[in-house]
């Protein structure tokens, strides 16, 4: 900057480089300044107090206005405080941006991991729920077979009137077998549920079903497809004919709603264990 400023031969610039040896300068300055009869201090006061509107004053005022303006703006923008990034250099900004990107990436990864975990948990809880539902359903189905729950549905009612006392346990067993073969799903006889382990025995004039004595008339309530059950009983030489030969009266009625509500207690097997476990 000093190059072209020295060309116009200005005194200020010539003076400024001489700042290096200032020690001797004031001593020389003071007498030089006093030559027109003014010290530096007097000049300062003179320049300050009677305000003169000269060209020099106006120009300097304009420049100083610019300086003050820039100064204030810079200070204000620097102390804005709302963003520490203001005035940061480009490389700093790039670094900060990189860090932010890294952080975003890491958080994104973490988010994905957590979402995956959540999905897995939801899935597994869904699966557990499904398994539980299926278990309940299966328990209900098995309960119908095992006689631990009541059942209802379409089926038939068979009533065997035995006035002569000729019906024996094996005839009832035949009837039960026939019903089972025809697809009966739930059977009860005079309030006793017939299940897989049911046994029948003759005991005098009555019949014992699983130890419960039942007397005529024997009333079977059977759930199954009525169109299969009734013909199965009525086939020639079948249950009904055999019983009628023994002078028993058999009536078979179809019904769209049979309720089998005789229950059995759940009995835990003493010896048999599930082999699937």
């Amino acid at each position, binding site marked *: 900057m000093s190059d072209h400023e020295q060309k116009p031969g200005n005194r*200020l610039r010539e003076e400024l480089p001489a700042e290096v040896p200032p020690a001797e300068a004031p001593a020389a300055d003071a007498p030089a*300044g006093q030559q027109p009869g003014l010290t530096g201090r007097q000049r*300062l006061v003179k320049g300050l107090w*009677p305000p003169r509107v000269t060209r020099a004053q106006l120009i300097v005022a304009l420049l100083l206005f610019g300086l*003050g303006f*820039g100064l204030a*703006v*810079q200070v204000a*923008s620097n102390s804005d405080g709302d963003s520490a990034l203001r*005035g940061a250099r480009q490389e700093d900004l790039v670094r900060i941006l990189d860090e932010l990107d890294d952080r975003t990436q890491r958080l994104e990864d973490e988010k994905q991991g957590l979402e995956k975990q959540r999905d897995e948990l939801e899935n597994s809880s869904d699966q557990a729920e499904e398994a539980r539902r299926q278990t309940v359903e299966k328990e209900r189905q098995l309960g119908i077979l095992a006689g631990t729950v009541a059942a209802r549905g379409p089926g038939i009612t068979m009533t065997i009137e035995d006035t002569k006392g000729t019906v024996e346990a094996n005839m009832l067993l035949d009837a039960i077998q026939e019903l089972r073969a025809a697809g009966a799903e739930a059977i009860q006889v005079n309030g006793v549920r017939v299940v897989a382990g049911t046994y029948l025995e003759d005991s005098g004039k009555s019949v014992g079903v699983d130890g419960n004595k039942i007397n005529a008339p024997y009333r079977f309530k059977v759930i199954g497809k009525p169109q299969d059950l009734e013909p199965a009983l009525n086939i020639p030489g079948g249950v009904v004919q055999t019983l009628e030969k023994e002078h028993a009266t058999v009536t078979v009625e179809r019904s769209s709603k049979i309720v089998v509500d005789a229950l059995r207690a759940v009995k835990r097997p003493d010896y048999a264990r599930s082999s699937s476990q």
Partner: protein
Amino acid sequence: MIAVLGLVVGVVAGLLVRPEVPAAVEPYLPIAVVAALDAVFGGLRAMLDGIFDDKVFVVSFLSNVVVAALIVFLGDKLGVGAQLSTGVVVVLGIRIFSNAAAIRRHVFRA
């Protein structure tokens, strides 16, 4: 006196208006301000010495600002902007100090 008033008015205006500094100018404003301060101190010293000349002051003020901004601009382009602006500030600071020392001798005779 008018000059001092100009400075005060400039500061007040800057504080009141609070204009948004354009992004292109932002890195250069602080350096330009420091360079202008250097010119002002030089001018003040010249006035105390009785050799003040308004034309010289205007030229030195403007060229100081422009050259300082130019150096920073060049430094930014070369990738050493931070170091160069530090250098400029150091140099200008030294000049301001020496000018202030001369002014002090005039005003306080010490």
